[in-house]
C-alpha cells in the first residue's frame, strides 16, 4: 500500500469505531461505503455558507448553490467519460435511475413481442423494473445464463440476444459474484441486433475506471452512496438523443418551461427529469466524493482491491467447508467475496463475525433469482474498498475460523 493509500485511513473516522468491544472491520462496502471527512466537510460547508434552493433564485446564495449543483454535472460527466453534462440526470440512486429508464424509455418504445434481456446475476433493481415493463407491455423477459465459475455465458448471450431484443440490461459488476461483465462485447452484440444497452454500474463505478463512450452503452446508472458519497443521490446517464425522446415521470418545480391550465411544456434534459427540489447537498457531496476518488485514482483503487483479493482469496479457499461463488481469478473480479460455510447458516456466521467487529452481510443480497440459480438460500458476503487493509483481511479469516470452531465444534 503506498503512502497516499496509507494516510487515507485518517479521512474515515468511523473506521476507529468500537463495535462489540472490537475495532470495526468494515467489509460491507457493496451495501454502502463510508464517507471521508472531505465529503462530510463539503456537505457541512454548503449548509453553513451557501444553502439555498437552486435555479430559481436571483440572490447570491441561490446563485452559489446553483453553480455548485450544476458544476457537479460536469464532474460526473468527466468521471465516466461522457460527452456532455446535459446527459447527466440526478436521481435518488441506481434503483430510481433504472426504473426511470424502464418506465419512460421502456414504456414508450416497447411493444408486445419485443424482448428484454437480463442475466441471472442481476440485482432486483435491475430486474423487477424489467419484469414490470414486460408485464405492462407484453414484452418477453429473457435471461442470459452463467458459466460454472459464475461468469456471464457469452455463448448463451449470443443465443438469447436476437433481432427481437429491444433492450439488454446488465450489471457491470455483480454485487454477489464480484464478477466484472464484458459490457463492451455485449453492447456490440446488442447494437448488432438493434437493441439498446443499459448498464447497472452500481458495483463498477466506485471500483474501476469507467468510460461510457468507450463502452458505447446507451444508459448507465450508479449510486453516490456506494462511492464515498452521501445517501439519496445517484446518476442516470443517457445518450442525448435517447433522453430527448423520453417523457418525464415526475412533474413539478423546475422541470417545466411553461404551465398552462391544462397543458404543460417541459424543459430539455436533464432538467425535465428533475421534478421538485433535488438533493442539493447530496449532489455537492457526490462532487466531493468524485474529487476524492480522482485524487487517489481509480486505477490505484482497483489495484488495491485486487491485491487484497489475491491475498485473502487463497486463505478463505483453504478453510475446509468454505464455498466461494464467482470467478477464482482475481483479475476477473472486484473486491466482493460471497461465500458459505457448510453447516453454518450465513446469518449465524454474520452474527459471529459481528462479535469480532467484522461487518459482513448475509442474505440474498437482493438477488433472489441468483440464489436459486446457485442453489442456496443465502450467502455471506465480505466486500472490500480502498480503505481496507491486509489486517482487515487477516481479521476476517480469523473471525471465520473462530465462527467455524464455535458452530461446528461447539468449543469456545
Amino acid at each position, binding site marked *: 500500500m503506498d503512502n497516499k493509500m496509507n494516510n487515507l485511513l485518517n479521512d474515515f473516522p468511523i473506521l476507529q469505531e468500537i463495535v*462489540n468491544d472490537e475495532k470495526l472491520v468494515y467489509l460491507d462496502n457493496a451495501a454502502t461505503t463510508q464517507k471521508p471527512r472531505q465529503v462530510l466537510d463539503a456537505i457541512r460547508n454548503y449548509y453553513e455558507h451557501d444553502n439555498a434552493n437552486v435555479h430559481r433564485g436571483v440572490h447570491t446564495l441561490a446563485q452559489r448553490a446553483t453553480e455548485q449543483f450544476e458544476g457537479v454535472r460536469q464532474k460526473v460527466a468527466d468521471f465516466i467519460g461522457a460527452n456532455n453534462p446535459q446527459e447527466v440526470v440526478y436521481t435518488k440512486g441506481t434503483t430510481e435511475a433504472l426504473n426511470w429508464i424502464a418506465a419512460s424509455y421502456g414504456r414508450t418504445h416497447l411493444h408486445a413481442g419485443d424482448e428484454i434481456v437480463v442475466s441471472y446475476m442481476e440485482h432486483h433493481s435491475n430486474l423487477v423494473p424489467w419484469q414490470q415493463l414486460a408485464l405492462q407491455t407484453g414484452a418477453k423477459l429473457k435471461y442470459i445464463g452463467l458459466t460454472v465459475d459464475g461468469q456471464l455465458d457469452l455463448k448463451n448471450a449470443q443465443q438469447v440476444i436476437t433481432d427481437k431484443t429491444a433492450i439488454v440490461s446488465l450489471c457491470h459488476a455483480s454485487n454477489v459474484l464480484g464478477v466484472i461483465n464484458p459490457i463492451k462485447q455485449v453492447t456490440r452484440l446488442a447494437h448488432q441486433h438493434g437493441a439498446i444497452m443499459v448498464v447497472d454500474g452500481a458495483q463498477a463505478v466506485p471500483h474501476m475506471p469507467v468510460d461510457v463512450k468507450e463502452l458505447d452503452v446507451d444508459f448507465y446508472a450508479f449510486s453516490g452512496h456506494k462511492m464515498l458519497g452521501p445517501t439519496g443521490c445517484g446518476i442516470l446517464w443517457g445518450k442525448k438523443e435517447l433522453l430527448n425522446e423520453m417523457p418525464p415521470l415526475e412533474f413539478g418545480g423546475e422541470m417545466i418551461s411553461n404551465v398552462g391550465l391544462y397543458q404543460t411544456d417541459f424543459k430539455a434534459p436533464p432538467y425535465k427529469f428533475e421534478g421538485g427540489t433535488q438533493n442539493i447537498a447530496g449532489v455537492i457531496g457526490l462532487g466531493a466524493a468524485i474529487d476524492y476518488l480522482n485524487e487517489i485514482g481509480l486505477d490505484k483503487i482497483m489495484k488495491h482491491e485486487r491485491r487484497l483479493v489475491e491475498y485473502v482469496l487463497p486463505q478463505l479457499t483453504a478453510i475446509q467447508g468454505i464455498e466461494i461463488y464467482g470467478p477464482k481469478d482475481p483479475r476477473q473480479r472486484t473486491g466482493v467475496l460471497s461465500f458459505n460455510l457448510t453447516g453454518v*447458516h450465513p*446469518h*449465524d456466521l454474520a*452474527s459471529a463475525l459481528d462479535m469480532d467487529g467484522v461487518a459482513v452481510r448475509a442474505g440474498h443480497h437482493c438477488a433472489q433469482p441468483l440464489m436459486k440459480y446457485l442453489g442456496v*438460500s443465502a450467502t455471506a458476503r465480505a466486500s472490500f474498498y480502498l480503505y481496507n487493509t491486509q489486517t482487515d483481511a487477516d481479521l476476517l479469516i480469523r473471525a471465520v475460523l473462530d465462527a467455524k470452531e464455535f*458452530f461446528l465444534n*461447539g468449543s469456545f
Partner: protein
Amino acid sequence: MALSKLSNLYRQVIMDHAKHPHNNHELDRADHEVELRNPTCGDVLTIQLKIADKTVIDAAYTGTGCTISQASASMMTDQIKGKTIAEVEQMVLGFSDMVMGKDVPDQTKLLGEASILQSVAQFPARIKCATLAWKAAYQAIEESESND
C-alpha cells in the same frame, strides 16, 4: 475472546434444538398451514397446525433457516401443543414482547423452554429470525378463527 459473547445468543439448548429440531416434518391432514418468509435472508418456514375444539392438538414445521429460526420453530411447536387458541395467542404476543426486550409477566410459565430465546433481545438484527415461526402460527390461528 469475542466469540464468548456469542454464547449469550447461542445457548446450548438453542444449539441442540437447531441441530436436532422437534416437529420438523409435515403433518398429514393439517387443518391450517401458513408459509412465511424472512425477506431479508430468503428463509422460508411453513407451519402446520391441527386444531380441534379451539385447541392446538398437533403442530409441525418445515423449511430452512438459521439456528435461531430453526430453534425457535422447534421450541414453539413443542410449547403450543395442547394449548387453546387463546393461550397460543397470548404466547405469541408474550414471545414477541420478550424478544423486543420488554418485561413479560410469568414469562417462563407462559413460554416454557422457549423463554431461553430472551437472549435474542440483545441481538436486534436476529429478532425477525426468532419471531418468524410464531408469526406464522398466529396467522394460522387467525385463519382458523375466521373459518369458524
